[in-house]
């Protein structure tokens, strides 16, 4: 089956110059764990997730720690988040984006989601413009 038959037809996306505070509002209200970043033509240029923001707000040595309990207190995290809240998301987004097209097979989408460990994949048209996304739940519902 083609991606066009299983994808979620939603174009929720952000521009790279919006502040982190605005992104958090959109992720929270749209109930999305991540969101595509597009340019003024609607072309996919990046991707940003809750994980990217948490990573940006955590101390640089965090990934070397075995447990979050080594962080002295959460004030550090909150302070850093407040510090970056007006910064453009461009600083924290990923530009190495994997996407699929509507004509790709469901198997390719499933394979990419598993291999890349992502919750969803943006779907683009032949000009690279965002036309939807394939979520893990779309695949599960489809394969059931």
């Amino acid at each position, binding site marked *: 089956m083609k991606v066009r038959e299983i994808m979620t037809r*939603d*174009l*929720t996306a952000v521009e790279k110059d919006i502040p982190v505070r605005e992104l958090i*509002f959109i992720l929270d209200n*749209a109930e999305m764990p991540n969101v595509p970043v597009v340019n*003024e033509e609607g072309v996919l240029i990046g991707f940003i997730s809750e994980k990217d923001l948490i990573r940006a707000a955590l101390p640089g040595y965090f990934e070397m720690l075995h447990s979050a309990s080594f962080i002295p207190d959460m004030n550090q995290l909150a302070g850093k988040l407040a510090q970056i809240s007006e910064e453009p998301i461009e600083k924290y987004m990923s530009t190495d984006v994997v996407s699929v097209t509507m004509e790709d097979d469901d198997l390719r989408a499933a394979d990419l989601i598993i291999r890349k460990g992502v919750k969803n994949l943006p779907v683009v048209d032949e000009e690279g413009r965002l036309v939807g996304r394939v979520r893990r739940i779309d695949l599960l519902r489809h394969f059931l």
Partner: protein
Amino acid sequence: MIVTVTLNPAVDKVYWVDSLKICQITQEEFLTRASRSSTSAGGKGVNVSRFLSAFGLDNVAMGFVGGNTGHVVVRYLQNKGVTTNFTWIHDETRINVTVIESGRDLNPNLINERGPQITQPELDRFMRRYRRMVKRASWVVLAGSLPLGIDPGIYAELTTIARDSGAKVAISAGGEALSRALVACPTIVKPDTREHILFKGKELTSIEAIVEAGKSVVTCGVELVVVSHHVTGDIAITEDAVWEIKTDVETALFKNIVGADDAFLGGILYKLAAGAAMEEALRFGLASGIASAESEKKICESHEIVESEMEKVVVSRL
């Protein structure tokens, strides 16, 4: 691709009851039980999107949504095959309630909430998305009432942006929002006469008044004005013709007239987007509206039923 804009969408809740009891005296209390009910996404542009998707036409629904009711709107449309691109807001999407009493299907009781308050940053976010989307659009539909915080000049601004991008524009609205939009020369104008019976300063109560008001708009550059004259008939005015579109279908067959008007516009756009002549588009439009009114669902999704209704529609030049 067609972009529909519903700045004030809603969750439409419809209740069918034997009779709606209303408290008349203090301390009186009535319980009205609904024999059945339905929940759907509503708002004029949203209804047009639903129609277009049911008929396989690629379209994107835009506007403002917020809160739990906002999620109901988005999820409902996606399940119906509509592509969504809504701007999320702090306030909550409204709920519109329709109560249809047995035997009074043509006179439902409506309670429409005013809608959320839109802030300037939320409007800015929407405008940026809108500018992006209209670049891909062949048609833009601007429809329905405005939420709080939105200037009545918004439809004029959105029309100008769309036309500058090369898209045609259809407006289904009323009051100041519509009258100010006329300056920007939309392609199709469908005045919402439910609350705003005045159009171009005229009461649209007779065919003569409708034609006169429509003609004055067409001379300003609008290509088509469509006005509902009565439940089963409409008047269409173009630069070189005035059409009456009517059907002899029994109104007793109507089950739910909410959304029928929007199916009418959806039907016209569906045909015009496919390159059909005006007469055929008008015929298909009215057939779509009638088929929707005859359906308990707000929008008739069956091509066969609309086609069969087309046989009953008469389009004649006045």
